[in-house]
């Protein structure tokens, strides 16, 4: 049997609720977007329900530590269909077993959730390191990104705490939404704007000092390198090529 949900976190939690209500045996979870109807499996359409989702989330809160709740959320943000399925099984496994079951790394779903959460955290950390703000002429620090996973919700706090006295925008060009900090709070925002122009703002949109500091940073990057220790393999391992487009020091 296949449960189909709408791809939201609430939908996923509702699916767990519906399973416990019906106990239909082994079930796979799929999303509306990726599901292909087949003739061998029965399907059940999960209708997202806030109240049911809350009950499941509260139940998880009782069973899991904060660290594991975060792992659950992080794994969800990966947006991978097979991880949705793993999260569904993970949740039922946690509810069916005594407290502490999440430590059983021998269970494939526990391991999958934990591994995926790790990848998402890694991507989050990479965004914290590789985001390069450009100071625009209207005084806002801007950066456009297209991360592998939907990590904006995870990095909002970090940037809010750190850059408390400057306005900034971090825009996810792939998922078409961004974060805007207005010196008080962080808000979600969307823009109807040509994303190509937003990737590399033209020089007249930038603050006059922007090019100076970009060049100084490139100079610094060059002079801090030790030629005789060159190790390209290690360099690429730390800064995979797909991130180079963000990096000021990698632009010619």
């Amino acid at each position, binding site marked *: 049997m296949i449960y189909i949900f709408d791809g939201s976190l609430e939908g996923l939690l509702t699916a767990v609720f519906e399973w416990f209500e019906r106990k239909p045996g082994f079930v796979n979870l799929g999303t509306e977007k990726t599901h292909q109807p087949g003739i061998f499996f029965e399907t059940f359409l999960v209708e997202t329900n806030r109240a049911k989702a809350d009950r499941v989330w509260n139940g998880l809160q009782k069973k899991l530590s904060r660290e594991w709740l975060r792992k659950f959320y992080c794994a969800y943000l990966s947006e991978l269909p097979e991880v949705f399925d793993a999260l569904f099984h993970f949740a039922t496994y946690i509810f069916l077993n005594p407290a502490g079951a999440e430590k059983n*790394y021998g269970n494939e779903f526990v391991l999958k959730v934990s591994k995926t959460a790790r990848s998402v955290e890694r991507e989050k950390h990479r965004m914290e*390191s590789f*985001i390069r*703000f450009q100071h625009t002429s209207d005084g806002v620090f801007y950066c456009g990104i297209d991360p592998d996973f939907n990590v904006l919700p995870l990095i909002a706090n970090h940037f809010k705490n750190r850059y*408390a006295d400057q306005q900034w925008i971090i825009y996810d060009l792939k998922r078409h939404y961004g974060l805007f900090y207005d010196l008080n709070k962080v808000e979600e925002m969307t823009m109807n704007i040509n994303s190509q122009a937003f990737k590399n703002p033209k020089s007249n949109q930038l603050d006059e000092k922007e090019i100076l500091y970009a060049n*100084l940073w490139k100079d610094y990057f060059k002079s*801090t390198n030790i030629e005789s*220790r060159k190790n390209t393999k290690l360099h690429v391992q730390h*800064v995979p090529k797909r991130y180079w487009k963000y990096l000021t020091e990698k632009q010619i």
Partner: protein
Amino acid sequence: MSERLGEKLNILADAAKYDVSCSSSGSDRKNTNKGVGNGHHSGICHTYTEDGRCVSLLKILLTNHCIFDCAYCVSRKSNDIERAAFTVDEVVELTMNFYRRNFIEGLFLSSGIFKNADFTMERLLRVVKKLRLEQNYNGYIHLKTIPGASDELIKEAGLYADRMSINLEMPTETGLKLLAPEKSHQDVIKPLDFVQKQIVQFKDEKKLIKSVPKFVPAGQSTQMVVGATAETDKEIMYTADSFYKNFALRRVYYSGYIPISNDTRMPILGTQPPLLRENRLYQTDWLMRFYGFKVHEILNDANPHLDIDIDPKLSWALRNLQHFPVDINTADYRMILRIPGIGVTSANKIVQTRKFGKLHIYQLKNIGVAYSRAKHFIKCADTSFQLKDFQATQIKAFILAESQSKYLKTDTNQLILF
């Protein structure tokens, strides 16, 4: 003006790059006054240079003018190089503008000694004070303690810096005397000890009075140059161990010597820096800090040097086969940590998971154990019974045959047919 700033940055970043420390972790400084910046508990590496080292801090010298003539240093008095000096404002402006664009995690400020120690320390102090007090900057600051500076200056600097460090430079006193006759280890030990005592004192006071300010919250570190003089690995690591113990250092860095002069006392120009040796020393350092090894277990009079072809953990295991095979399902955590191919994360997972049932080979692989290495040293639920006991040399040969060193460009096991 900006051109000159660029030139200065090139000269003074180039002179500072031989200081390897770039860590930005360990500080929990908060952005309380709605200024800019905060500490990140595990640090953030914002980019990596082409030699694969992380760039986390803006690492510069205030000046490369120096009154000392240490043979191992590019900024030595007798070296004919371009000299430059930043003004206090230039350093502040660079730091703030780089930080605001998320280029860096903070500032690493060091300096050549000009005039005298106090004069230099006072200048460094002015930079950090300006950042903290005028710019509301709460990001990371790593400051060099200038040996010989007065206690008052060092103490005041500690109130603004997150980490302070002084480099030991040569692992042994005799090595240092050979290359820098004007210096001694005592010059380093005295301020390290002073700062350490202050850290302890501030921590004690903080327990009683909450408003006591932070004092060097990310602790102290030091650095040793490896391969410039003829120390053994044992001497290097014993020195490191005693500094970890006596001054509660957060880190000791090992910097492979990169030939910079024609001085006959040191390796000649063009010699490759000892990268593999440096790597082995760091591995030993990690074994001491995270794996519960005592330094004398890894290096002793019988083994004064680390093996080049295998890592120190494997090397220890092969010398101590009486402890193996270890039963994964019953052994103590500390013993599991000592198995080659199992790291801290895997060891933790193993200890947690085995409560749910005996572990099998496929589970170990999934958890992340390097099984092809570990299999020679462990027993688990479905390990097949083995009659033959292999010798250490045989196990080493098995492992070497399966793995490939990233340092050896040509595989020595490869047969040459033509």
